[in-house]
């Protein structure tokens, strides 16, 4: 397989899957985090109805990513999961409760409060765990040879707590701007009001993470500061998106806040990738070290190239079918 760099192709596929998952499952998780703060039960109905048709499809990217990692980059799979053992459990428990809450809340009357709580806590815990994973990735792992040798809670440091809280704020922002897009009346007005607050929180955390990261990891420091590079374009674009978000909320634009938030996420994500590339299991292992055998990568690639367009088409179709505003009292029970 000299003609193609299969590891590179797989890195692109997995990288694409991760950002798809982060933004798509991010806004529905954000709504879960915002759930207790919603003005009334009516708005909660609107919030849940706005994501009900799509959340299940959003999570397919997580499972696809997990399985794809085992197939294409087993080292990532066999280092990240042991290192993040407790965090992975918390994330899965959160996702399970959230998924069940989605289904049963609509069908419940007396028990609705409990499903509300399950939805909120499940979303919050899963979001925090994923943010901590990002932080742990920046920190790097205690790896000897190809085996994780660190402790159970190495991943839990002040730095990862901050990235965890940061991602919770980020998801909440994504959720709020999604709600602006999908709602109207007093629900939308509430979403407009909280968006600048969330944006401020996100900017504070992102700034703190950006300043802190070079000190947590010297390689990242070198990447950013040794010589001024093109890499600085990415945070600049993220900041530009933040300004765009702020002004579009002031103008009470419907769709632009969500698009701007997507921009913040995508450019921050690219910035993170650029800080580490091509290292995939920090501190030392690159995508080529972490790869499975070429024949295995190729065997799996054939199936993926077949199924990814179908999943994308189906996803796009679902979003298209359920486009437009969710009205109060509308939707289904």
């Amino acid at each position, binding site marked *: 397989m000299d003609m193609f760099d299969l590891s590179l192709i797989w890195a692109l596929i997995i990288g694409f899957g991760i950002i798809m998952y982060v933004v798509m499952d991010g806004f529905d998780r954000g709504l879960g985090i915002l759930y207790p703060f919603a003005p009334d039960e009516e708005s909660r109905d609107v919030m849940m109805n706005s994501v*009900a*048709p*799509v959340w*299940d*499809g959003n*999570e*397919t990217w*997580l*499972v*696809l990513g*997990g*399985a*794809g990692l*085992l*197939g*294409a980059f*087993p080292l990532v*799979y*066999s280092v*990240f*999961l*042991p*290192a993040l*053992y*407790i965090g*992975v*459990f918390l994330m*899965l428990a959160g996702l*399970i*409760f959230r*998924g*069940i809450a*989605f*289904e*049963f809340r609509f*069908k*419940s*009357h*007396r*028990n609705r409060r409990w499903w509300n709580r399950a939805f909120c806590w499940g979303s919050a815990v899963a979001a925090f765990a994923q943010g901590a994973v990002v932080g742990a990735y920046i920190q790097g792992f205690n790896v000897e040879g*190809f*085996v*994780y*040798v*660190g402790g*159970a809670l190495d991943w839990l440091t002040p730095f990862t707590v901050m990235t965890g809280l940061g991602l919770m704020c980020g998801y909440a922002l994504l959720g709020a701007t999604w709600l602006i897009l999908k709602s109207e009346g007093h629900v939308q007005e509430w979403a407009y009001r909280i968006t600048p607050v969330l944006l401020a929180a996100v900017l504070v955390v992102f700034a703190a993470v950006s300043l802190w990261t070079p000190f947590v990891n010297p390689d990242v420091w070198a990447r950013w500061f040794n010589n001024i590079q093109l890499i600085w374009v990415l945070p600049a674009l993220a900041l530009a998106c933040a300004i765009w978000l702020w002004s579009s909320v002031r103008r009470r634009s419907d769709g632009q806040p969500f698009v701007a938030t997507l921009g913040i996420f995508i450019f921050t994500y690219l910035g993170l990738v650029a800080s580490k590339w091509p290292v995939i299991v920090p501190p030392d292992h690159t995508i080529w070290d972490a790869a*499975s*055998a070429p024949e*295995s990568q190729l*065997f*799996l690639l054939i*199936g993926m190239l*077949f*199924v990814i367009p*179908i*999943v994308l088409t*189906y996803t796009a179709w*679902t979003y298209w079918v*359920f486009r437009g505003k969710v009205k109060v009292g509308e939707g*289904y029970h």
Partner: protein
Amino acid sequence: MELDPLLLSRLQFAFVVSFHAIFPVFTIGLASYIALLNGLFYKTENPAWDRLALFWTKVFAVVFGMGVVSGIVMSFQFGTNWSNFSYASANFLGPILSYEVVTAFFLEAAFLGVLLFGRGKVPQGVHLFAAIMVAIGTFISSFWILSANSWMHTPAGVELIDGRFHVTSWIAAIFNPSFWYRFVHMGMASFLTGGFVVAGVSAWFLLRGRDVDANRKALSMCLWLLLVLAPAQAVVGDFHGLNTLEYQPTKVAAMEGNWETRGNVPLLLFALPDQEAQTNRFELGIPSLASVILKHDPAGVIPGISEVAPEEQPPVAIVFWAFRIMVGIGFLMIGVAIAGVILRKRGTLYTNPLFLKSLVGMIAMPFVAVLAGWVVTEAGRAPWLVYGMMTHAEGLTPSLTGGMALFTLIGYVAVYAVVFWAGIYYLTRVVRNGMLPEDEQKEVQGEVERPKRPLSASHTPFDDAEPARS
């Protein structure tokens, strides 16, 4: 007491996978049944088939949804607790397990939505096609999973280089020596499970005199199916056993409770295997019958457990008893199917309360049998994770401590207890609600539905409305 991460991880995997397995085992059989019902309606236009199809599709939706939720955990278990194994076997298992996920998604994206929500919105033929594709899809999914599992029992088509398996032949690895036996045995187990659940629920309705026509039809066809499948499963299981004798003789020895290599091995009905003393403390058996079954010769020599050193032996008592539970339930199933024929001849099949009540009682039995069967094959492989090539201890995550494993074991038990309670509670409500009256059956077709969420195909409320709010 020192907490053993190996034992706790094995317990955790057994718990998580058993919990998960309950759902697909049922949905595989049920998907084919739903396709059959849709096909019968398409051909005969008898509305009874349509009502049955709609009712069982609702049940299918809930069970499928529970299976998906519990399945997410499975895809992470290999990495969290068995990272050395994952890393070593990723070249083969990675693509195979990914293909399972790919199949499931393709199925969900393309056909599940049409089956669950397309009724009345797409032409009837298209709906039938979707039902058939979902049924086929469940088999393709189990194909990949059972291929991966069989490979761990009878590894083939790989080469171990520097501690990692490299695939030398995909065909040899995927269709490894025990694959077809396991696939057929498991497929039939799914059909038996689906058959007994449908028969039991139909009997429950008949006992209450609800929807008598449709439920009689369902019960009748189930019992014909079971009459063929239950004995056939015994034959297939026997072939599977012979295959195991060839590749994993120690497992068969444990199943038979046979410690020494010898001829004229009795078929033990009851025994108390004592692993420390390397013998059975008490035996009650039929002379030479095990030799006859396994070697077709009363004098046939069967390898004993003591062929391998004590530290390489599986836990004999567990394997021995799990095997007896599975086989015992198998014979019970055959008995019930035969009783059905006798009552049919007498014309009291739909009215004999004792028989109907036993059918209701049988609902849980196939699940017990399937789980017992999995205990036999998985515990019987111990201490090997990949038979003859990698032990459980070698495959374990090196950084895992007993405390971590205990924490997540308790955590998964707690999470699944809540999920299982909610799911089973809801499922019983769906079943109790029963079928729609014929006139409402038509109205369902007009509703606007949301795709992609299996559970929303059922409209049963989770609880009773609050008096003040309703």
